[in-house]
């Protein structure tokens, strides 16, 4: 009788402990893959949000969402983009050629503070460090104050058309068509300067605006606009709206969350949540040069709620987005 009792007790105890001990042992005995948990920013965002790696070595990541569907991508490495589904483990491998600090971010509109879901990978190694750009950003070179208001000094009375402008472009001095000119000037600046050209004197204001549209269109291509559009819809439209009106799905809620949302960022006491910029507003857009928009996108809005994208988009991608932003003001930009 005693033997049976001992067997029954010991067996029950082994089984009870075993169902907990075995998973724990298996878990800790598993490889040293880095596990990243994704939660909406309000619940902590990426955990961990700093990872260390070595250049030239493969980094194995196990991505798990603890709440809703998120997406994962390393900035400027679009091939790393994967969906991270709740309760499932998504495994990916990433290899970095150069040391440096890389940013990973959420690619799905997971919640109000989706744009806060960022983390960094600190890649160490002997080779020269990766840098996003060797030169200073254009807005710094040009001395543009990104935070100053930039209302357009003039706005068109009808939507300027790049295709109409193309018909009159033969008289346009070449200097206006250069990339340097395009990037450094706002459409309103270009209009004012063209208006002052004696050769343009016979043209109506509307025709001069068409020439401005032509200059802007001549500095991009259909493929770039398509690329800009898809990047805009995936990353910007949540706040700025698919139609560029600043009425994205999160716009109202962000404004309502307002200061509270901003204060949740460390050291963000003096910041004010602002409504997303309306790209369909001519006074706003015709007063903004591509260099200014490039600076805003690269650096972010600094306390306005607009995140920085410099670590995420490549230079080419940023210029493509900018080209697309002017499609909200000019005809003939539809890809």
């Amino acid at each position, binding site marked *: 009788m005693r033997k*049976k009792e001992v067997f029954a*007790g010991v067996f029950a105890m082994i*089984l009870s402990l075993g169902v*907990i001990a075995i*998973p*724990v042992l298996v878990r800790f005995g598993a490889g040293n893959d880095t596990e990243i948990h994704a939660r909406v920013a309000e619940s902590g965002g990426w955990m961990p949000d700093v990872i260390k790696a070595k250049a030239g070595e493969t980094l194995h990541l196990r991505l798990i969402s603890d709440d809703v569907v998120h997406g994962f991508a390393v900035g400027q490495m679009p091939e790393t983009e994967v969906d991270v589904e*709740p*309760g*499932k483990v998504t*495994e990916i491998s990433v290899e970095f050629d150069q040391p440096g600090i890389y940013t990973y971010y959420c690619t799905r509109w997971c919640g109000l503070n989706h744009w806060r879901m960022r983390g960094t990978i600190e890649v160490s190694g002997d080779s020269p460090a990766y840098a996003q750009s060797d030169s200073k950003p254009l807005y710094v070179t040009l001395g543009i104050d990104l935070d100053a208001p930039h209302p357009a000094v003039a706005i068109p009375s009808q939507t300027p058309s790049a295709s109409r402008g193309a018909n009159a472009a033969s008289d346009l001095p070449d200097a206006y068509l250069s990339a340097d000119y395009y990037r450094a000037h706002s459409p309103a600046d270009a209009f004012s300067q063209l208006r002052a050209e004696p050769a343009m004197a016979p043209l109506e204001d509307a025709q001069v605006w068409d020439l401005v549209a032509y200059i802007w269109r001549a500095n991009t291509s259909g493929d770039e606009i398509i690329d800009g559009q898809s990047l805009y819809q995936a990353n910007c439209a949540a706040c700025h709206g698919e139609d560029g009106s600043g009425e994205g799905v999160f716009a109202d809620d962000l404004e309502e969350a307002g200061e509270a949302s901003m204060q949740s960022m460390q050291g963000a006491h003096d910041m004010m949540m602002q409504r997303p910029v309306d790209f369909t507003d001519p006074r706003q857009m015709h007063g903004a040069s591509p260099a200014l928009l490039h600076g805003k996108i690269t650096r972010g809005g600094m306390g306005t709620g607009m995140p920085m994208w410099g670590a995420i988009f490549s230079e080419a991608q940023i210029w493509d987005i900018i080209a697309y932003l002017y499609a909200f003001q000019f005809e003939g930009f539809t890809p």
Partner: protein
Amino acid sequence: MELTRNPLVKGVLKSRWPQWAFFTVLLAMFLFAIFAGIGGTPVGNHNFGIVFVWIAWWAILILVAVPLFGRGWCAVCPIPVPGEWLQRGAVLDPPPTNEQASKGRWLNLRWPNKLRNIWLQNTSFLLVALFSSIILTTPQVTAIVLASMLFLAIGMSLVFERRSFCRYLCPVGGFIGLYAQTAPLELRTKDKSVCVSCEGKPCYNGSQAGYGCPWQVFPGGLTKNTYCGLCMECLRTCPHDNIAVNIRPFAADLSKPSARLDEAYKAFIMLGSAMIYAAVLLGPWGSLKSAAYQVGSAAWFVYAAVFLVVILLALPGAFWLVVRFSAYLSLLRQKSQSVIRRNTSPRSDFSRLATALIPLGLAFWVAFSLSFVLTNGSYILMTLSDPLGWGWNLFGTAQTAWQPVLTFVLAPLQSLVLVGGFAWSARTAQKNAAEIALSPAPIIVFCLAVTLLMLWLLL
């Protein structure tokens, strides 16, 4: 039909090994559910703690175990097991001496007289029900609830005699007992006169053959299933072979209605919470769902207040009026036909007639549970292979997509169950009202009204 006449069945029921096997496996699963809640993914539909407790176990309990076996689940439930093993100082062994057969090794206190009812169980069920939206979806909260029940059961086994937790506190045990009355399975004595003359009453006091009834019931006095836990100790201890496990018609106990208010209230609590669950969990009202989920918010307090008022005041209040109206009708008839009416109190009428709500309540729970079990059953396969959401694929089913099954039969099946429940309740009302010479019509109308409401909520 007496099952225990079959020597094989009787042998299996008397042996402690089959029960021990159930206890051991289910206890391991229960502990794993707690572990999964704490250490597994916080995503409910991928966590063993949520899927196996609130979908798999619940489905087995409410769709199979309770309707067919009554307290069959209580006979194998792992929650009181560690406490009981500690109390007995044994996992398998019967008591070493007759004296130790009903005495626990610890404080062994008698449960207080004032609490010898199911009001505490009504309260514990309501407590769980109020937080159900968050318990049913959040693995960590589920783990806390399960662990609390385990520790509470252990603590009570060390302080109080026998299975006081199961009998007086367990939030699940209360309603299993209520609906066990409808089950076609019962444990009864074969001949009551044998019990009357039995010396020492080992079924209650225990012997070297087994422990005194853990459920604090004297089998000789059993008339309904409510408090018999089907643990089979009396089958082991009865020196006269006077205990039988019988197959019987469904709902046989309902013809012996209880006049106890705590049991009557249990019927209202279960009926009302099934309707509120259907509205919150299956209904289209988003703000109701979020109010139920946001525990501690102003909206949740409103929800909690409405929940309690509906269950504790509105439903019983309406039923009270219906019973009074029924009494008024019978009084009119009494005057015109000079029928002699038995002298029962309004409170006793209320409690007795509330028995009619038992089949209906069970039907409500079956219909409600069918809906979410068929909708979410596919999570069981997924979670079986990856119970902790750690990326395992033990049986190759981790990638099973969420897929509601048999949805085309859901609405007809639910309707059938509700109509069946109503018919069964109406029949019970008719019999029980006749016994106390009341008119059953108002009770039947009440049952019809709540059935229609539930049909609307579900369909």
